[in-house]
Structures are given as C-alpha cells and as structure tokens.
C-alpha cells in the first residue's frame, strides 16, 4: 500500500487540483462568463445525479464492454497477423502495402460505412473499435518479431526448436515488450473510437450520453460524461500495466542489472 502511494504522481495531481480550483474561481467570480460553461462543482453534482439515475453507470459499462471486447479481438488478430508478417517474407510482400494504406486511413471515415453494413448497433461499434486497435498491435508485433536478436534465432536453431516452440519459447517473450506497447496503444484507440462510434452511430454508451446532454443544453451532465471517459482511459491503461507487471515481473527488468 505504502509502495503504491509512493508511485502516485503528487505533482501531477496537485496541478490538476489547481486547474480545477482555477476553473471554479473563474466561473464563480464571473471572470469567464460563457453561457454553457458550468463550474466543476456543478459537473460533479451532475455526475452524482446521473449515477443515481443509473444513466452514467449503464453508459460507462456499455462503453467499457465495447472497448474491451474490441481490444481482445484486435489483440488476438493483431498478434497473429504481426507474427505472420514477421515470419513470412511472402506474407510481407503481399500484405505490407495494404497494411500501410489501411492503417493510415482515418478510422472515423469507416464509421459511416460500418453503419451501412452493420446498422446502428453495438456490433458496428465493436467492429470499428477493433479495426482501430488492430493496427498498432500488428505494427508493434511485427517490429518486435523483427527485433528478436539474430543470436537468439541461432540458439533456437542449435537446440532444434520447432516452429511453434520457437515462437512460444523465444519469439513471443523476446517481442513481448513491444507487443505490450502495441496493446496499450490499441486499448486507447479502442476506447476513443468506441466513443466516436457512439456519438455518430450507435445511440448508447458514454459517447451518446455526451451528445444527448449537449443537445439538451445540460452542459454540466455533458462535462460529467467527458470526465468519466477520461477516467476510463487512465484506469484501463493502469489496469493493463498492473496486469503485465503481475504476469511477468521480470520481463522488463533486464535493463536494471544489479
């Protein structure tokens, strides 16, 4: 517990609190007099009301579920595709151009297409969010496979490790730090795109809550939704880091030789 507390970024949190206080003061003293800018206290109050009414909890669970489902699909497909590209020169020749084109297309441009194909549904949302999460995972897995030192491949050859065993015992662990980078980026992308898809497609979740409250001019509730989206992103990233630190405590330590 004490160890966790030490990991808290005190300075960073102090800055956030100071900014919120400044915002509160500015609105309270009418230094900023915008019709649609609520004070932080009003945002928190609206958030509490939304939670009590159940809308915020339902929306959060929906968005969280979509982001996680999309991320898991992207993780499985992305690592598999990254391994394929990393191992097969033929696959690289066939797919690289497509990957480069597809990954640079802004994913939001696909949302209208996905709406036509899948309708205003959660399925549409999962598809576009998974699509967005897929590419950083593919690219980083490929990078990780390519960065496996030649010496380790020779060790695998000397010990006559078969293809599957070579992947499991050598390539995946050696590439794991980069695959994790891809997984973290993918998780952020999945959340962002899920919210966007809710804003312009599927009428559920936090994205839709923000749009709905904005159109009803309930800006304090709108800001409460935005706040929860931000907290969700931070929490998901922290959870993923904690999970990998527990699953493989030594994986990222070789730099810290004692």
């Amino acid at each position: 517990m004490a160890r966790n507390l030490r990991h808290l970024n005190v300075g960073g949190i102090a800055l956030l609190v100071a900014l919120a206080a400044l915002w509160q003061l500015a609105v309270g003293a009418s230094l900023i007099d915008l019709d649609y800018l609520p004070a932080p206290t009003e945002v928190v109050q609206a958030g509490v009301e939304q939670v009590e009414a159940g809308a915020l909890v339902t929306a959060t669970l929906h968005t969280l579920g979509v982001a996680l489902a999309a991320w898991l699909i992207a993780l499985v497909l992305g690592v598999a595709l990254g391994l394929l590209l990393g191992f097969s020169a033929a696959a690289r020749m066939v797919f690289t151009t497509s990957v480069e084109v597809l990954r640079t297309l802004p994913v939001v441009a696909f949302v209208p297409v996905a709406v036509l194909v899948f309708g205003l549904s959660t399925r549409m949302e999962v598809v576009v969010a998974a699509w967005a999460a897929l590419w950083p995972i593919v690219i980083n897995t490929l990078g990780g496979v390519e960065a496996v030192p030649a010496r380790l491949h020779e060790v695998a050859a000397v010990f006559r490790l078969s293809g599957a065993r070579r992947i499991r015992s050598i390539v995946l662990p050696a590439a794991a730090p980069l695959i994790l980078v891809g997984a973290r980026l993918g998780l952020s992308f999945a959340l962002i795109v899920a919210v966007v898809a809710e804003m312009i497609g599927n009428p559920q979740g936090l994205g839709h809550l923000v749009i709905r409250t904005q159109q009803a001019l309930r800006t304090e509730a709108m800001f409460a939704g935005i706040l929860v989206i931000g907290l969700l992103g931070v929490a998901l990233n922290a959870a993923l880091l904690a999970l990998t630190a527990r699953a493989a405590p030594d994986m990222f330590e070789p730099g810290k030789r004692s």
Partner: protein
Amino acid sequence: MNVSARMETPALMARDVPQPAAGEQRALGYSCHAVGVSLPGPQGSRKVLAGVDLEVAGGEVVSIVGRSGTGKTTLLRVLGGLLPADEGTVLLGEQAVSGPPASAVTVFQDYARALLPWRTVRRNVALGLEGRRACGRAERERLVADALDAVGLGGRGDDRPWRLSGGMQQRVQIARALALRPRVLLMDEPFGALDAMTKASLQDELLAVHARTAPTIVFVTHDVDEAVYLGDRVLILDGQPGAITDEVPVSLPRPRDQLTTKEHPTFLSLRHRVHDAVGGAHGA
C-alpha cells in the same frame, strides 16, 4: 608444407585421446573436405574460407587458432550447421551436415545475448531438452540439475542469468549444452570475454567435463596459450580466404594443470611454434 598428407591419418593423431566411459554413446568426429564459404559483403560476395580440409576424431579436443578475419567463427558455424558450405563436403560421422545436427551443440562467446533473460538459470538450461527429446519431467529435472552441478552452479538455478557475473553466465550456457549430453561441443571463443582467473577455472572445468564424458570438442580461440593448454591438436587458420595452414599435435599429458602444464618445456616450445605459425609478433 604438406598439411593434407598429414591430415589423412587422423587416427594417429587421436591415439592418446581418452576413450568414452562404458555406457556412453559412441564418439563422433568430423570429416571435411575442400570446404569453401562465401559471405555477402559491402562489395558483393567475399570468399571467407577456401579449400579447408579438416579431420576431427571422435572424443578429440581440437583447437583452432588464427588472427581475426581468417574465418574461425565461419568455420565453426559451418561445423554447427548454422551456415551451409558453398563448396566441399562436411561430414559428422557418416552424415552430411545440413542444419544443426542433433548430437552437436554450439556455445557462443556472447553469453549475455545467447541466454534468455526472461527465464531463470534452470529454465535456460532446460531449453534444449524441451525441444530435442521426448524426455519426462523428472528426467529433464535430473539432467538440468546434473548439468548445473557440473559447472558449479547447483545453487543458482532460480536466479535470472543477468544477476550473475560474466563467468557464471558463460557457465550457464555451457550447462545448457551439457544438459543434452552432446557428443560434440563446438565452442566459439567461449572464454574470450572473461578475465584471466575466470578463464583459467572455466578451462579446467571444460577439461574435467571432457575427462568424464569425452565429447568431441572443437574450440575456436585467438589465445595461443589456451589453444595449446586445451587441445590434443592445434590447427592454424590463416589467409584471406582462410585455410588451414598448419597443424601442431600437442603431446602434453593429461590431466593438465594451469601451473605445471604451462611450465612444462614441451608446452613452451609448442606455444612458441603455434605463435610463429599464427604469424604473431615478437616483442622488441
């Protein structure tokens, strides 16, 4: 000098080699003829080895010395099946080498890069057993424990390799090879990065392993003293492209000793001869 004529009688050279203990697998040797290798370089293909003839008897310890750039490592990679020869034949026993043979294990110089940092010492040593044999878990644990004991690391099985000193890390790599009970050990300047004292104790451990199980050992080094101290024969690799230009039989008795062997007049004269053959400079 007619090197090849002498090399046609490897049995003579291997006369004093310790015989494998009863129950051990039959010793296995190399027979290479007119081996040539070209490697891609900045100005197209470059010939690294040409016309290499090499006979290594089963159970023999052969040192290969040469200045840097003469293709020592390349030759060892060819023997280990990590690099195909462009010309000539490479036989291990009766079999042509195409890919790493099941009975030979290569030990690399750069132990830090050849070990898996995410695995414990014990699981590093078990790596070869996972891939190579259908041996049971109990059998595997026994082989790993034996191999760690053989290099004096019995108590360090649960450490990560990067927590160990350089000499201990190289011991882990040697244990990983020994766990397979290989009939051939191919060693590429394995002690080149270690300090003198660590180097001496690892040399003696290697000789102790050889005295017990008599694997065939091909030992590449640029250290003349080490080549003479370890070997039954010293081969000199020289030229560009590299070829075996000389061969020095080592008639020193075994077991060898860091002090008495190295004070032996024969050791000193062999050392002198190898030094000259390699083209080493004499200090002014």
